[in-house]
């Protein structure tokens, strides 16, 4: 007769599966969890992937891009990485268009990290996000957002604001 095994719960000092930003000159970058939290607000269209490790077999296994089609069905696509010969350590790279591999939080890049190994991972991303710059003059009318707002509301709050400042100096 079996006896249920009750788990022993402990809190580790460091995670056994860790994904972290490497140390940079300007300090520690955004954490992996912050990156994940930004997904949805920011969508990352990846253009260039780079993966490296101390030995080639550690990164030689297939890499898949998992995402969902228009009907929401799960799709897994093999990504044919190529060996980067101009590196001091074993490295692979994969180049694509920024609208091919899109990281949204639901999609993923799946590959095997061997037991006890460390893998370095980089990619260039074109980041699309909801927002605009206040003085952006790329609107169709050629105005910035302040002027658009005044037109929409029928006010001219900023008109002669510069002269007002001069007069009162």
């Amino acid at each position: 007769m079996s006896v249920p095994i009750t788990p022993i719960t402990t809190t580790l000092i460091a995670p056994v599966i860790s994904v972290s930003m490497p140390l940079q000159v300007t300090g520690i970058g955004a954490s992996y969890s912050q990156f994940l939290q930004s997904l949805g607000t920011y969508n990352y269209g990846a253009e260039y992937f780079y993966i490296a490790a101390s030995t080639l077999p550690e990164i030689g296994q297939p890499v898949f891009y998992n995402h969902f089609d228009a009907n929401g069905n799960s799709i897994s696509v093999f990504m044919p990485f190529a060996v980067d010969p101009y590196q001091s350590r074993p490295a692979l790279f994969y180049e694509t268009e920024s609208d091919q591999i899109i990281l949204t939080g639901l999609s993923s890049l799946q590959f095997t990290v061997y037991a006890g190994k460390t893998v370095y991972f980089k990619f260039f991303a074109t980041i699309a996000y909801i927002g605009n710059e206040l003085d952006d003059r790329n609107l169709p009318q050629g105005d910035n957002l302040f002027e658009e707002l005044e037109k929409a509301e029928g006010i001219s709050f900023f008109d002669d604001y510069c002269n007002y400042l001069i007069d009162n100096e």
Partner: protein
Amino acid sequence: MALKRELIQFTIVNSTDCDYNIPMFQQNVYSINATTKYSWDVTTAVLSCGTGTIIVNSVTYPLSYTATLTGLISALNALGFGFFCTETIFGSTYIYVVDDTNVYGDLDLCPSGITTTTTTTTTTAGTTTSTTTSSTTAPSTTTTSSTTTTTTDIPTTSTTSTTTTAPTTSTTTSTTTPPPTTTTTSTTTSCVGTFTLINNSGDLDISGMLIGGASVIVTSGSFPSTPATTINGTPDTSLTIPNVYGLQLTSVTSGIAGQTITVFDSLGNSQTQTISIGTNNIIFNGVDFNCITTVQIVCNAAGATTTTSTTTSTTAPPTSTTTTTSTTTAPETSTTTTTSTTTAPETSTTTTTSTTTAPETSTTTTTSTTTAPETSTTTTTSTTTAPETSTTTTTTTVAPTTTTTSTTTSTTTLLAAPLRVENTLSLDISVSDVTVNAVTATPLTGSYPIPAGENRDLTTTQFGTYSITVTFTNTITGQRITVTDSNGTSQCQTVNTSSTFTYTNCVVNGLTQVLILCEDGVC
């Protein structure tokens, strides 16, 4: 919408003893950067049955795995929670998972008592009719004997003997019985995922639903879904469950802004979309369907609070019904007919002895013996065995897994001195030995004898219902020794001369001290 271009880089470290197929950049991958570790000691666990359960977030999940540790790890990882691995610490083998989000409970491998097996065996005995008719016709023998003997001189003998043997007829008819026919039909029915669409909105109409691009099967209610209705159903049977599918609500019509639809999938993950006014198809990506937990689609009124707790409908394991019907049909008719007709030879022996002797004597002796045929007819007729049908139906139903762990730790401390001799009230009794079950009880302090005026605690290892003997010496009569056992039962014997008293059926339990009291006065 704005665009910018950046370099993003990560260092991925796998410090476990297991390869990890990591889904980078996917949300809700629980083991990444987690530090809460749950470990199960499986050193002595039996994996041979290939089944088990694990509790995650208070829900019991069934496990089915190849009967190895690797197979168990694969099954645990397939649950979709944290990443499970093994490690060995000081010779003990542990399974562990590191997960800050989910809460893990007991792991029960090869649990007993969750499988109910009902075996119904119906055996219809065949009807056997055996008729044996034996007819023996005794031989009809006619013997004619005539002997004439004439002694003559110097006979010359010529003998002619003719024996005619009638034919012997033996007929054997044998019917070979075919082997039994056994038909075994095994049918396994797997479960399918289920969903329920609860429309609590004020004004949302949904004309249909697609899961994995296929129309769903409605088991109760009907589309279109309208406010205050519920529709239950299953994904199309062509889909493989468990799996992740897109869920599309077709032609969702809303007349009120701010209404929402929330989908709780089988893993408890939820997605909420706010429905804009008009008619739209609403798609939820990556909805996990499994055989255990019903996927819920809840339409909420504008401003309603979405329940974030996953109300998983059941914790019942997948219903897997295996029906095995084995029908063994004995040969319908087994007929063995043996017809043996033995016709004894009709023996006709004609012995003609012709003796020609001297001329004066001529003797002819004719002996004719005719034996009528011995007819032995054995007829074994008709041994007919009606078909023997043996039907065995085995239904195995896996009952809902309920694991209740009750651990009661009871510590009982036995007395150091289960017995005590009190000898301050006797006149001159000196106790030289006390035995329990014929084993001497040892004084905790000092030694035997225990003279008048002293008390002494005794220890023993004999716990139970035994005879206690008290050996003592005395010179004064009219004293008594009373033994009161652990149950409070007293036995008293009056002391006259030095002796050994035996007190039978005394309970010595180590919890209540047995008192041996020596006093003045008779019982």
